[in-house]
């Protein structure tokens, strides 16, 4: 399944004429890249395998798509494996995902058996022979029980918010996670009680990707034209998978309050990830709620519609992320990077990105969302100030070079903890 690029078979490839490292150097400056290169030299010769459950759709696949290329450029051979699974497996892991977020749901004994059966089968086929095996999220987590080789280090990366996890969901996952050498979480509030080192590292976006690179005005217009969206009114946009935890219905309810006071167009744009069986259901719920509202547009986008999303975000006057639970919400970082004014829920990792009244506006209710969207629609100066500060905040903290740096540093630390190179742990 691995190729010479390190990407799995189904992962999209973007055309690139220059090296990632030089591209990032032009954006973040020489200092952070020097540190990355130094870490790359330190880990030279160690092989890394990344594993998640989908090659397309969702933030994790997007991060891996670029991270794998970057680590390879830095001289750390890295491959990416995608955990295979049937429909029942994806339904089980979706329930696990939702219940870890605190939503209702139950995993039966049969579910647990099927989860382990599929994992065991996958463990026989996946190429997991790196020095460091880096598993993302709960779906492939149990691979550690079936394929761990002596001398390997296994690292679990949790991208989701465990702060409201249902106890039975965490009881199912905890014994699996305890088999790892270390874990990484996006936010301090997500870290459960664990008997292994737990590091904090928020995820990041790629400023060079089709979704985030600068667009010429002509290109932006040509991308938006086929969508047929009204252009006379300012756009209030939420870009997210159609997932109940992203609360598309709540966005529509907030927009109903906004439109009574300010003219605007709500654009709800999203697709669904390969491993998300609920997407169609949630999309239907949103369509039903928006029935009869001419100033609400619901767009179902293909998983590779990155340039369209880029154009939608850039054309928006206000970007909303009214999630009920979040791991991190990369769409917020994307919007901030494009200097957009953002209104977002104070959940999960969003407050790390949206510093209230400094880089965006945080809300906790439908009414709060309506109030802040209205406020931004009325104030170009506030939008400009928040947008400029938001971009700088993302440049410093939420671009791929920073996340790659954190991962490489964890690798270096783990390898040294087990008799590897010479990383020095102060104190």
């Amino acid at each position, binding site marked *: 399944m691995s190729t010479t690029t390190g990407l799995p078979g189904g992962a999209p490839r973007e055309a690139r004429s220059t090296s990632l490292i030089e591209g990032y150097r032009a954006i973040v400056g*020489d*200092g*952070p890249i*020097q*540190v990355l290169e*130094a*870490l790359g*030299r*330190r880990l030279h010769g160690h092989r890394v395998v990344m594993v998640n459950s989908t090659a397309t759709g969702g933030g994790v696949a997007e991060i891996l798509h670029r991270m794998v290329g970057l680590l390879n450029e830095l001289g750390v051979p890295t491959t990416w494996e995608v955990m295979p699974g049937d429909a029942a497996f994806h339904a089980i892991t979706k329930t696990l995902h939702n219940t870890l977020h605190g939503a209702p749901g139950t995993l039966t004994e049969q579910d647990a058996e099927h989860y382990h059966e599929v994992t065991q089968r996958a463990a026989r086929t996946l190429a997991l022979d790196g020095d460091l095996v880096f598993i993302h999220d709960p779906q492939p987590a149990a691979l550690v029980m079936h394929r761990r080789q002596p001398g390997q280090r296994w690292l679990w990366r949790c991208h989701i918010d465990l702060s409201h996890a249902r106890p039975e969901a965490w009881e199912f996952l905890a014994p699996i996670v305890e088999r790892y050498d270390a874990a990484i979480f996006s936010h*301090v*509030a997500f*870290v459960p*009680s664990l008997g292994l*080192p*737990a*590091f*904090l*590292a928020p995820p990041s976006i790629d400023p060079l990707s089709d979704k985030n690179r600068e667009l010429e005005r002509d290109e932006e217009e040509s991308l938006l034209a086929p969508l047929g969206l009204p252009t006379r009114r300012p756009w209030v946009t939420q870009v997210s998978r159609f997932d109940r935890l992203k609360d598309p219905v709540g966005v529509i309810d907030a927009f109903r309050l906004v439109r009574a006071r300010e003219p605007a167009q709500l654009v709800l744009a999203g697709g669904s990830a390969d491993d998300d069986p609920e997407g169609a259901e949630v999309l239907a719920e949103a369509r039903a709620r928006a029935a009869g509202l001419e100033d609400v547009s619901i767009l179902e986008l293909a998983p590779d519609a990155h340039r369209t999303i880029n154009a939608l975000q850039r054309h928006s006057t206000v970007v909303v992320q009214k999630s009920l639970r979040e791991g991190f919400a990369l769409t917020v970082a994307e919007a901030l990077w494009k200097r957009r004014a953002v209104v977002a829920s104070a959940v999960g990792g969003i407050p790390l990105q949206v510093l209230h009244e400094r880089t965006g506006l945080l809300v906790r209710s439908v009414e709060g969302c309506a109030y802040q969207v209205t406020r931004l629609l009325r104030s170009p100066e506030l939008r400009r100030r928040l947008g400029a500060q938001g971009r700088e905040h993302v440049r410093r903290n939420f671009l791929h070079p920073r996340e790659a*740096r*954190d991962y*490489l*540093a*964890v690798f*270096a*630390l783990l390898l040294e903890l087990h008799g590897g190179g010479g*990383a*020095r*742990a*102060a*104190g």
Partner: protein
Amino acid sequence: MSEDLELHAVVHLVRPLRLRARGLAELREGVAAASPTSLFHHAVQYQLRAPTDDELPPDDFSAWAHGVLQDREAAERLSFAIQSAPRGSEPLRGALLRTLAGLHERPGRAAPEGGEFVFLAVDSVAVSTGVRARDPAGLMEGLARAAPSVWFYHLIERPWFDEADPEVTGWLRARGEDALAGWLAHAAASGRPIGVIRRQLLERWRRRRLGVRVAEAARRPEGERAAAAHDAVAGLVRRLRRPEERS
């Protein structure tokens, strides 16, 4: 005398501890129990979070007292304690405990749910940048191009954990650069932002090198000497004018 000075960058990996505080009394208990790497993270490492700014961002303890507890007096006294404590975890712990002991818990000043102070610790991963300085000029050249974390590691972090002047100052003294070493030792202990120390050190070095260049130019042909003298005078004029511009 022959050993090179190798420049290292540092990455700080943050780990949560089990310690939390909802008010000043619990903060005091947490400070008493926190590991040195936790005190380092909250009261020293914050300097690296905005390394190019002329003003230091607030440390974590005073930021929490100000922003969450809304206790301005506690915030300013904690800030002062942190900025004036000698290097090292125990001197800092002592300064914080004395300050917190002098602050009375105000009724109603407990953090709301979700606003607790969570003690974090860091693992520092130092990596060689591949730059090795053989002499002071090479060091300045390397530092001029180095990332802020290189400056932080050599001037702030290692001296803090070692409770000693930066290794680099001893290295400079061994090469006859006593004045520069003395200035750097003072600057590193002063609590000035890294960006400011960087600017001031490189400026001092440039000025010092100017005299050396003039002396070297005296041995050169007339045309080259004239150009060097011109540069020296121009620099002098700039320095003389600077106080006037400030006044």
